[in-house]
């Protein structure tokens, strides 16, 4: 493979991370170009890579020419390239907003923050393209460690939240590693393609099921799947705003992608989803997971309703959305998987918009509690317009993209006969409608103190660096909505057969 483009996508932010840590400390003005240029470059490069892979087929990149299964392999198929584009694109857009908010929130420590930020992006990029089960563990920890660091940078409570996250995150990673250990004992290899080749011979042994269990639980902790989600709200409540705009949209989504990848490319869906795979004979694992996902969606939505702060509310919505995707995967049909993958893309965009808006509000107003949102439509019309559109997408109003992933997920649920999952999706849409209209109402009606007379409220939008990406991202929700058909038929439809 003479084409080294893939590696540059990873190398650019990695080198930038070192540059930021060295030069950013000397002069904080170089941080912005050092963050934006490599991320922008990577985003464009991964877009072209996606087009290239769609056109001429997927390929494997062998790092340093050490042939698999001994060497390290990177896999570029339509799905991983789509994810790569998503990761680089979202982190590129998010970094516009992260720059001003970090300069305000962590003065003097921007260079440290953006070093971690860039390393986190590299870790996420690595996660989506790696074809090696052990590298996956290492990259998982790289992303986690940079997240721990970024969370802990906040003042006050964050260190404690971060510490709890470290403990739970490490348990998750160790579980994953343990599962991989079992797989290694059984097969003697860690390369995913190699594993997939050898797995049929050992399927059905208890050790294999144990390996799968450990891997799955490990990933569930990382993706904050209900009821293993408790670390996420605490960690994200107090984290620096610049971190949440990038991590909230990507971390859980990438973990879901990893689950899909491991189930389809390693453990084989036929075995994972078989009806008699379970602890008790009446209840297959698939049924159990679907029930948990359904319950998790509803419970997390209800907990979101009990919050009195915008960011806290959004954080619980992330947990609810994870239930959508996990449930979609475990419906074990094409429609459900399509819905889950489409939702990975759509939800990443929606969460990006929500947290960009949240961050802009925090920057302009100084707080995101419901009381401080009053009269916001007049004060920050652009931000609120984008937020409103995103709210509609979360409710699943067409033609925003949120509608279309829900469409596939519900169809998949009907097809598989899992009506409780369909019910949970519908219920969650309804609760989302209540949640967002409550925010709209507060922002729309109540004017702070002076009352409602006159155009007394001054405009106080956040700086352009935060507002423009937000508006663009909100426009992307519509683009993704109208393009949902194309995305499904040209990319996801191609990616699913290649997964297996």
């Amino acid at each position: 493979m003479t084409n080294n483009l893939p590696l540059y996508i990873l190398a650019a932010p990695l080198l930038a991370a070192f540059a930021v840590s060295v030069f950013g400390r000397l002069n904080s003005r170089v941080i912005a170009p050092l963050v934006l240029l490599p991320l922008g470059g990577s985003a464009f490069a991964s877009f072209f890579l996606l087009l290239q892979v769609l056109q001429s087929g997927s390929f494997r990149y062998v790092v340093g020419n050490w042939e698999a299964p001994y060497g390290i392999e990177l896999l570029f198929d339509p799905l991983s390239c789509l994810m790569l584009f998503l990761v680089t694109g979202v982190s590129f857009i998010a970094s516009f907003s992260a720059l001003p908010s970090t300069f305000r929130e962590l003065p003097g420590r921007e260079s440290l923050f953006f070093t971690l930020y860039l390393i986190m992006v590299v870790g996420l990029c690595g996660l989506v393209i790696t074809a090696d089960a052990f590298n996956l563990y290492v990259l998982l920890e790289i992303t986690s460690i940079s997240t721990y660091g970024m969370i802990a940078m906040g003042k006050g409570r964050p260190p404690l939240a971060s510490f709890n996250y470290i403990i739970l995150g490490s348990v998750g990673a160790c579980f994953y590693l343990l599962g991989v250990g079992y797989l290694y004992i059984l097969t003697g290899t860690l390369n995913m393609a190699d594993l997939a080749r050898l797995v049929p011979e050992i399927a059905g042994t208890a050790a294999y099921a144990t390996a799968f269990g450990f891997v799955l639980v490990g990933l569930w902790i990382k993706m904050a799947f209900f009821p293993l989600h408790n670390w996420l709200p605490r960690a994200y409540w107090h984290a620096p705003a610049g971190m949440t705009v990038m991590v909230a949209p990507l971390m859980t989504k990438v973990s879901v992608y990893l689950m899909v990848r491991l189930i389809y490319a390693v453990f084989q869906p036929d075995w994972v989803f078989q009806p008699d795979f379970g602890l008790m004979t009446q209840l297959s694992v698939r049924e159990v997971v679907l029930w948990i996902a359904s319950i998790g969606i509803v419970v997390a939505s209800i907990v979101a309703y009990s919050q009195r702060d915008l960011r806290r509310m959004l954080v619980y919505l992330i947990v609810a959305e994870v239930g959508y995707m996990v449930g979609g995967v475990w419906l074990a049909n094409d429609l459900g998987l399509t819905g889950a993958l489409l939702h990975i893309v759509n939800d990443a965009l929606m969460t990006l918009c929500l947290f960009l808006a949240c961050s802009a509000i925090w920057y302009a107003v100084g707080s995101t509690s419901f009381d401080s949102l009053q009269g916001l439509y007049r004060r920050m019309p652009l931000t609120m317009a984008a937020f409103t559109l995103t709210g509609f997408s979360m409710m699943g109003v067409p033609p925003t993209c949120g509608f279309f992933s829900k469409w596939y997920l519900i169809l998949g649920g009907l097809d598989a006969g899992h009506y409780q999952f369909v019910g949970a999706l519908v219920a969650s849409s309804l609760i989302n409608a209540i949640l967002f209209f409550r925010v709209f109402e507060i922002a729309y009606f109540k004017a702070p103190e002076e009352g409602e007379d006159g155009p007394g409220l001054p405009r106080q939008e956040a700086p352009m660096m935060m507002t423009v990406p937000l508006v663009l991202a909100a426009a992307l929700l519509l683009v993704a909505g109208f393009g949902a058909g194309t995305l499904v038929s040209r990319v996801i439809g191609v990616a699913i057969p290649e997964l297996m």
Partner: protein
Amino acid sequence: MDGLMQELVARYNYWIYVILMMIGFYAMIGKRNLVKKLLGMNIFQTAIILFFVSIGVKNQGSIPILSKKQALEGVADVAQVINPLPHVLMLTAIVVGVSVTGVALAVLQRIYKEYGTLEEDEILEKISKR
């Protein structure tokens, strides 16, 4: 009963790792002192590292380094050599573990500066009082 004893003895490495893991797990969940939690996490990680290392071992196996003579003659008997790959992997895992511990210790320092204690109950109490 005999069968069970044999099973225990034959796979004693597994049992040790399981016991170590449970100890670590208990410390992480049960202890209220943050340093003890961290220690529990380390024990947990070490258990897994031991587990990996132990699966590479072979009875009477030699170290996985070929002498020049063996290499030239091509007589290296794979069955007689310890599998080195798990060890290599664990080197990486140890590095990861150390980094996590480092970050965690740094975070603990910040917590201590902020609250003057490392007992979770006391910290939560102080938070609720603010």
